[in-house]
């Protein structure tokens, strides 16, 4: 069975679990627990181990979708999950307390996934709330990572079609980077 593992990263509340649910052909395995910190992020539950979903590409081929728990105290899970993946969807919500800081943090934390394969960024809730513009996200990326050209799209993680686009963009990027000898270099 050929497998491709894609990791969904980003802060709590960005929409990782929702995004995987939009894409997965199986019922998503979730590990939610009651959120003790509703004063920080107003969500009833939070992911404490991982989310897991699948897309069956062919009889012998799967895309496995793993979602990390977004909170820093679970970063031992990040170490475990990083090893398995060849690419990353980094979701950041516009209304996070420091969305650009979160973007740069997760990109740095999971840099090896960019080096190994590829990364795409999805900015969520952009149409719903005030926050940095997409251009500000892109500017920050360019300032801190000169030469890095990664897709940055606004997305609604509930929307199947938009998430498919984001995933397909990631996959084509991973393949093009490999085709032009860009991936695997560090």
């Amino acid at each position, binding site marked *: 069975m050929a497998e*491709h593992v894609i990791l969904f990263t980003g802060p709590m509340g960005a929409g990782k679990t929702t995004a995987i649910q939009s894409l997965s052909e199986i019922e998503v395995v979730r590990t939610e627990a009651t959120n003790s910190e509703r004063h920080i992020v107003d969500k009833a539950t939070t992911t404490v181990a991982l989310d897991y979903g699948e*897309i*069956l*590409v*062919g009889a012998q*081929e799967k*895309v496995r979708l793993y979602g990390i728990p977004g909170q820093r105290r679970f970063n031992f899970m990040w170490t475990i999950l990083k090893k398995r993946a060849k690419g990353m969807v980094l979701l950041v919500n516009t209304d996070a307390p420091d969305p650009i800081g979160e973007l740069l943090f997760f990109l740095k934390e999971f840099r090896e996934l960019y080096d190994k394969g590829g990364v795409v960024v999805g900015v969520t809730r952009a149409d719903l709330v005030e926050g940095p513009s*997409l*251009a500000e996200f*892109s500017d920050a990326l*360019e300032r801190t990572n000169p030469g890095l*050209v*990664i*897709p*940055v*799209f*606004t*997305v609604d993680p509930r929307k199947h079609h*938009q998430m*498919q*686009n984001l*995933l*397909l*963009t990631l*996959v*084509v*990027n991973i*393949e*093009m*980077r*490999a*085709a*032009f*000898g*860009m991936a695997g270099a560090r």
Partner: protein
Amino acid sequence: MTMDVEHVARVQPPDTVDFPVTVGWTPAAMAVQAVLSLNTPVHLRMVIEGHDPLLIDFRHHAFSWSTPLDEFPVEAVHTRLETVPTSADAPPFFELPGQDLDGLLWEMGINAFGGGPAFWLSPGERYRLTRWPNLTQHSHNLRQVQMIAVLGNAYASTAELAKFAGVDESEAQRLINALSLMRILTRSAAAPAASMIPQTAAAKRQSLFSRLRKRMGR
């Protein structure tokens, strides 16, 4: 919709481009490119038959138009194109935020120049992407996504891009025109040819991207 004569007469100097009626977006794209590259302090106002006027405020990177972009009129009949002088402290051309100008630049770039090179591009150059467009906001197809991914990872001329992505040259050119108009493309006469790890056509069909899009019904 009639021209706002009073407004134009008040502003010095009234710079109305003497404009023959044209079908299509090439002259409009040329005007937009001129303003963007020269950073001229003007707004643009385009009168298009059957549509409300299209207003562009470059300073705020926005446009105002009642026609939605997913109904973009490829064969638009332009009857008038006006430049409206503005300045750093002048008010916006219309009530902000308007719509993101990138969306309009994409459509204009794809549909102008009839599949040939934009007039500001030079033969023999290679191109590379500096920033991805926000594809969620632009109607696009997956061949364009592939082409953008090529340009994100290598310098390519139009002909090379067409070959790497397996598309017609005119389709590759339209994309290059759009990305160039959006100012997210680097142009280089000196960049060497990129080489793609050779793939047979069969291997390309076998890529995860092709299998995944097929699975998704796309």
